[in-house]
């Protein structure tokens, strides 16, 4: 018996320890599974994606997120989220559009960076996928998963703990306690007013353009086309919009490729180009984003002119301030 005392199987203390650890492990697993199932059930209920009286939807990445103050346009909702590529926008719209008959038009950001390879990093890059995969995983079909897996071999490792609990708790809280569904879960987007003014400082460092940053994204066009198809299927009008950016934001080389790309592949989708609309540095938070004041001015201007814009061309206004004074 003495000989057996130290061995793993026969040691009483070891068994006691193993049982204790198993109990804790089991309870934790049950808790996490329960959380997941509850959140999964919520995220798949049409009620969660209800946008109420919304008729106009703004979506895309941080440019529209900081540019469209949806409080200033009645029956509008901004669901843009910084760092969101078309892949994730598509997953979100696939839930929103079929469940909201009142939505008539979807304004989707289409800026220069949307066509370049940076978007692939925003889709499956190491940094962004760790946040987005646990968040969007419940909205994905096998096909979406395969698309990601093809480019991100580490995908299956990401789901287990990384921000997993946080995502599920946010879903549950936004539904059960705030009762506004995804609209109260800022992780799925919303207008973000920026207060700083930094465009003047950033201007000094006009970016050197590398060959890599001129490569076209593999995934962007595929999912932009899917978004277009989704809108057609659900009877919504899709309009591409380029939000105002600072005059130093876009490199001329990028602009040429961007325009050519749009003409070649997206000529059938209306495009509103507000890219060069605003000149004043004081209305920018940085080169790519309007600040709060800029966003308010732009939103008012957008609301006033959106139906009058020449949807087929590149109508550029030299000064939004001038227009607003009229």
């Amino acid at each position, binding site marked *: 018996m003495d*000989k057996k*005392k*130290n*061995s*793993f*199987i026969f*040691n009483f*203390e*070891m068994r*006691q*320890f193993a049982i*204790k*650890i198993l109990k*804790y492990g089991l*309870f*934790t697993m049950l*808790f*996490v599974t329960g959380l997941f199932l509850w959140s999964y059930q919520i995220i798949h209920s049409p009620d969660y994606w209800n946008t109420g009286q919304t008729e106009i939807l703004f979506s895309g990445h941080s440019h529209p997120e900081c540019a469209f103050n949806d409080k200033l346009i009645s029956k509008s909702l901004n669901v843009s989220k910084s760092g969101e590529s078309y892949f994730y926008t598509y997953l979100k719209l696939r839930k929103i559009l079929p469940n909201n008959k009142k939505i008539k038009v979807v304004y989707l950001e289409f800026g220069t960076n949307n066509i370049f390879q940076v978007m692939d990093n925003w889709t499956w890059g190491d*940094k962004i996928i*760790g946040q987005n995969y646990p968040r969007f995983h419940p909205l994905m079909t096998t096909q979406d998963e395969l698309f990601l897996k093809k480019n991100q071999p580490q995908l299956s*490792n990401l789901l*287990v*703990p*990384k*921000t*997993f*609990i*946080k995502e599920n*708790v946010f879903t549950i809280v936004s539904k059960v306690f705030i009762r506004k569904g995804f609209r109260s879960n800022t992780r799925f987007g919303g207008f973000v007013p920026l207060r*700083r003014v930094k465009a003047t*400082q950033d201007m000094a460092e006009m970016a050197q353009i590398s060959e890599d940053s001129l490569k076209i994204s593999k995934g962007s066009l595929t999912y932009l086309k899917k978004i277009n198809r989704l809108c057609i299927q659900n009877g919504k009008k899709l309009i591409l919009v380029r939000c105002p950016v600072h005059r130093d934001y876009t490199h001329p080389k990028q602009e040429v490729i961007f325009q050519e790309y749009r003409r070649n592949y997206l000529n059938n989708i209306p495009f509103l180009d507000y890219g060069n609309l605003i000149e004043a540095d004081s209305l920018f938070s940085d080169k790519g984003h309007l600040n709060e004041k800029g966003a308010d001015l732009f939103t008012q201007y957008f609301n006033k002119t959106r139906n009058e814009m020449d949807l087929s061309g590149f109508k550029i206004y030299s000064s939004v301030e001038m227009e607003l004074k009229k």
Partner: protein
Amino acid sequence: MLFNSLDFAVFLPLVFILFWSFKSLKIQNFVVVAASYIFYGWWDWKFLTLILFSSVLDYFVALKIESTSAVKKRKILLSLSMLTNLGLLGFFKYFNFFIENISEAFSFFGQPIELGRLDIILPVGISFYTFQTMSYTIDVYRKQLKASNDFIAFSAFVSFFPQLVAGPIERATHLLPQFLKKRSFNYSLAIDGMRQMLWGFFKKIVIADNCSQYANEIFNNYQDQNGATLLVGALCFTFQIYGDFSGYSDIAIGTARLFGFDLKQNFNFPYFSRDIAEFWRRWHISLSTWFRDYLYIPLGGSQGGVFYKVRNTFIIFLVSGFWHGANWTFIIWGLLNAIYFLPLLLTNRNRRHVGDIAKDKFFPDVKSILGMIGTFILTVFAWIFFRSETVTQAFSIIRTIISPSILNVPELSKLSDFYLLSFAILFFLFIEWQGRHCKFALEHLGLKWRRVWRVSFYYVLIFAIFWFYGQEKEFIYFQF
């Protein structure tokens, strides 16, 4: 392999089961060596040769020292071991630093020379295991320890995975005998270890990793920040480095306990210190005592006249600063601490606070509070040098902090996250304060509570760890 990775979550139970499956001490030690080599090789297997080389060298040198009575020969053997170990450390860690500084010195005197930098990767934890093996050889030389004739046990001592890459730096006199005596699984020790690991993970994932986001953002863009924001950055780094390093030590000590080993306490609630001398008795204890025993005392310690006291103090703090990295910022950090410490030493007040803080009561007296605040401010100030990339950056940050912009509102991104983090820091400080008389904050906390409360408390910590768990971030001290 990082403690805060999924790899380790799989690795640890496997090694645990394997280790306790064997009754034989030799096989258990072999499991430790194999596991440690896998653990270390997970980063870069090529650097395993360095550990193996260090182990082989010191094993045979120590045996030789023991078998020789000639003083001169013993000294030569010791020098061989020291020079080789320090040579490796110097090459990997300090080569480029010296090259750069020599080039700059020549340029300064109008004689520019071209000295090529080497593209060297610093092996993880080299400063830790080098010091550990050196302590063994020195102890054998001093006849304080018998040389081991069990190579597997000795290798296990050198490479013991819980403390291999970031300490605590163990002494052979303390750890090596534990590899030579029969072990049996101890339930209380293991449960204690699990609690210490839990607290270590909380410190690392909840406190350190989240503080690091703000500290990095602020220090990396220091030119654009106002004084108040930079102060918040310095405070964030203060908690980051403590949470990170003491968290690692807690996880290491806790993990070792699962295998029946006792490692030294490395941190003793340093931010509750009432003066800098007490801070240094509580911060990175295994390194401070290493320097004390193998450098400070051989130099004469605090014996002798004022000159020797001042000289020895400066030497030990400068070496300590340099140990942390090949950068002038670390040297100035060490120098600053020497300046803080000297007045206490010279006025014989360096051992005023050796007892517990606020013993037998919850609140400290006003004098202790003032002492703690003063020491904390000095420490935060010194950490600015430690965290900065260059000395110029550190001075620029300090200049801005002491400018009128300190009265501005800090400009922080993700304010709601910052409030949550501030709450977590307060909770952390409260738990640390109430556990300040123990080896780690959770050692006795909750043991007398009703089971349901105790278990709920542990789940709050587990939940917080999962809640804050983001990307796996390396421990700061890996780079040292």
